């Protein structure tokens, strides 16, 4: 068995109560690496593509990677995956925190959750012992209460818990899994899959040690990172202001999603910025396992009705924009409370904010009225509706039951032109980055196997001019600046290389904020770190091929699930001009974009419908995949 792994994956069937430990061979580990790779493997092998995502036959896979738990910055992550109830496609969402490393210390590289329990349960994994425990008393509790109860019941405050809130219990299709009350597998509705299995939580306590091939080498790479990371502008920025530091720059550039992507500039941006957060409600900086970047923020508000408990963390860039500029809300305390509520209830803050913005635009266009919203004035800028709407969505009360299905399903039900204002790809709501100002992000949104996702590849702005961030990706073969608006072969090629690289992150357990281009760890140090952890003579070439393999596997699952070429397209609004701000009038040319997607297919070795050629699958050692 390679180092870096434990060598065991636990298969837990909640219908029968059976628990089996599997020990995959070395070839499996080196081929699929972990995370996204493991998820794609098990979905393709074991989950029929027409499975009901919320049915008994969907499987929920938790997968660490070879680097999860390496004592270096940016290596805390694990992936949760299943067929997504939001998109009906390949579902995968990663989280940081401490849960992934703890699972490996307990003795498992991953968990495969099968079946469906008749009554609420939770798993307690205490090293070799895996117990399925009664969770009837936990069902209905918020995440803070449930964490406390589980720790009390098992007599330890150091138990790490990944869990769902009432959002997942109520099968909100964009509910998340949350660990340590603030680190979320946010996207794709993995919380609903967990809720459908009546699985409230997975509590883990591990006392083992993860084996690494060359610990001294790892220490050396980690030490070097500590010496350089504060000199890297991006890492420095994350340390100083967290991701929230991005609000000011996005707004100045005219691409801060505002008023449901109608506008690119928000007059209240300063009030919801990372700088304002640092001056007002911040309590402390926080971070993940073994990471010095400390990009997380814990905030505190002590005001009646909107008090915010810092144990639920604080709003990040995506959350600030989704509840803030997108809804034209500039009340930072309300947004902080919205973030806390989403973490208590286990809701994805991006899709929740987008659902509210969608509802607000429905009102502004006369598609919906006050009566539909049970008397609430669901209009842009009305901060008083944000918190009650989150409550209604999480509890599926009244109109919240419709919004809990995701905006695409909600629009279909609402009719009256609601589908014309959708901002989704494959049914998932857009993150808070406007592709009209960075077209590579648009390619990522469109072709992402899991629906619109801003973390498929580094953003165009990092590579549009000479400087440190372009220099950082030269080992990947990205050698010259490419304009943010470009949609030529240069942009498509850059996206492909970066997508392979970032997909490898999702496999190995790497945070996008650790290595280049978004973090300070040089590309070649990642390669050396992997060699030191696993003991493999692995190269950057093999790493990139592994990333490409995972993309093709996820693609194949989607093809089997019935997704078509037309699903790789952006929503109409992005082909229309921005209505205000410094990029007023900017839009994406639809024909040019469609040509870029076709070019992407052919560069990937896929046919004109986006289906991988047999020769490509063979080249990636995926002959076994049938599509």
């Amino acid at each position, binding site marked *: 068995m390679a180092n870096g792994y434990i060598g065991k994956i636990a298969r837990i069937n909640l219908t029968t109560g059976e628990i089996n430990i599997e020990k995959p061979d070395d070839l499996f580990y080196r081929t699929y690496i972990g995370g996204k790779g493991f998820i794609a493997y098990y979905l393709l092998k074991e989950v029929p593509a027409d499975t009901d995502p919320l049915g008994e036959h969907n499987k929920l896979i938790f997968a660490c990677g070879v680097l999860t738990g390496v004592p270096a910055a940016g290596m805390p992550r694990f992936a949760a995956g299943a067929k997504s109830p939001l998109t009906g496609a390949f579902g995968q969402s990663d989280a940081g925190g401490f849960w992934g490393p703890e699972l490996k210390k307990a003795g498992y590289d991953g968990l495969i959750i099968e079946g469906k329990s008749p009554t609420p349960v939770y798993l307690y994994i205490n090293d070799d012992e895996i117990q399925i425990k009664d969770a009837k008393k936990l069902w209905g509790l918020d995440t803070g209460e449930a964490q406390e109860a589980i720790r009390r019941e098992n007599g330890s405050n150091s138990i790490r818990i990944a869990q769902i809130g009432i959002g997942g219990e109520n099968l909100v299709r964009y509910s998340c899994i949350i660990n340590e009350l603030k680190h979320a597998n946010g996207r794709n509705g993995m919380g609903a899959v967990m809720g459908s299995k009546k699985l409230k939580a997975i509590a883990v306590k591990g006392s083992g040690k993860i084996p690494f091939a060359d610990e001294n080498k790892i220490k050396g790479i980690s030490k070097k990172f500590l010496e350089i990371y504060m*000199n*890297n*502008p*991006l890492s*420095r*920025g*994350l340390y*100083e*202001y967290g*991701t929230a*530091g*991005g609000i*000011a*720059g*996005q707004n*100045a*550039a*005219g691409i801060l999603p505002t008023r449901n992507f109608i506008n690119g500039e928000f007059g209240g941006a300063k009030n919801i910025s*990372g*700088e304002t957060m640092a001056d007002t409600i911040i309590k402390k900086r926080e971070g993940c396992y073994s990471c010095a970047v400390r*990009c997380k923020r814990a905030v505190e508000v002590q005001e009646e009705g909107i008090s915010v408990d810092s144990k639920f963390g604080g709003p*990040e*860039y995506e959350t600030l924009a989704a509840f803030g500029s997108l809804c034209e809300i500039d009340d930072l305390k309300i947004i902080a409370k919205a973030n806390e509520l989403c973490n208590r209830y286990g809701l994805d803050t991006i899709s929740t904010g987008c659902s509210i913005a969608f509802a607000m635009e429905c009102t502004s266009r006369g598609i919906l009225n006050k009566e539909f919203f049970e008397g609430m004035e669901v209009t842009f800028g009305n901060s008083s509706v944000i918190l009650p709407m989150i409550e209604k969505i999480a509890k599926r009360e009244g109109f919240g039951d419709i919004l809990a299905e995701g905006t695409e399903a909600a629009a279909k039900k609402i009719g009256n032109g609601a589908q014309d204002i959708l901002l989704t790809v494959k049914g998932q709501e857009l993150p808070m*980055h406007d592709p009209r100002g960075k077209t590579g*992000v648009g390619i990522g949104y469109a072709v992402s196997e899991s629906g619109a996702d*801003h*973390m498929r590849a*580094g*953003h165009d*702005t*990092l590579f549009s*001019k*000479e*400087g*440190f*961030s*372009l*220099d950082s990706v030269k080992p990947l073969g990205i050698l010259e600046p490419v304009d943010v608006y470009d949609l030529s072969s240069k942009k498509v090629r850059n996206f492909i290389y970066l997508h392979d690289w970032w997909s490898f992150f999702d496999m190995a357990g790497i945070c*996008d*904020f650790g290595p280049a*281009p*978004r973090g300070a760890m040089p590309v070649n140090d990642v390669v050396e770190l992997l060699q030191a952890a696993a003991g493999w003579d692995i190269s950057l070439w093999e790493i990139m091929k592994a990333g490409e393999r995972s993309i093709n596997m996820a693609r194949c699952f989607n093809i089997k699930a019935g997704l078509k070429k037309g699903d790789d397209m952006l929503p109409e609004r992005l082909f229309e001009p921005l209505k205000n701000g*410094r*990029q007023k009038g900017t839009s994406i040319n639809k024909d040019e974009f469609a040509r870029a997607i076709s070019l992407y297919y052919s560069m990937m070795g896929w046919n004109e419908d986006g289906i991988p050629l047999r020769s490509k699958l063979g080249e990636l050692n995926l002959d076994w995949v049938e599509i």
Partner: protein
Amino acid sequence: MEVTIQLISVLKRHCGDPAGKIVMTVDEGTRIGQVLEKIPIVKGEAGTIVLNSKLVQEDAVLRDGDVVELYPVMGGG
């Protein structure tokens, strides 16, 4: 001629003024890229450049009294 450089957010660390403001005397025809070389910021660190409220690139030519705002590069997340 005199121009004002306003550093925003984390870029302020490169300046003695906590408010991030630098007033600089430069020659006629100076481009923003040349001004950036006089400030100890990392090459590529200034992502968005705003000249008198308009988006510009580093090749923009400065005039007397201009105000340049520099925002840190943003990479998603």
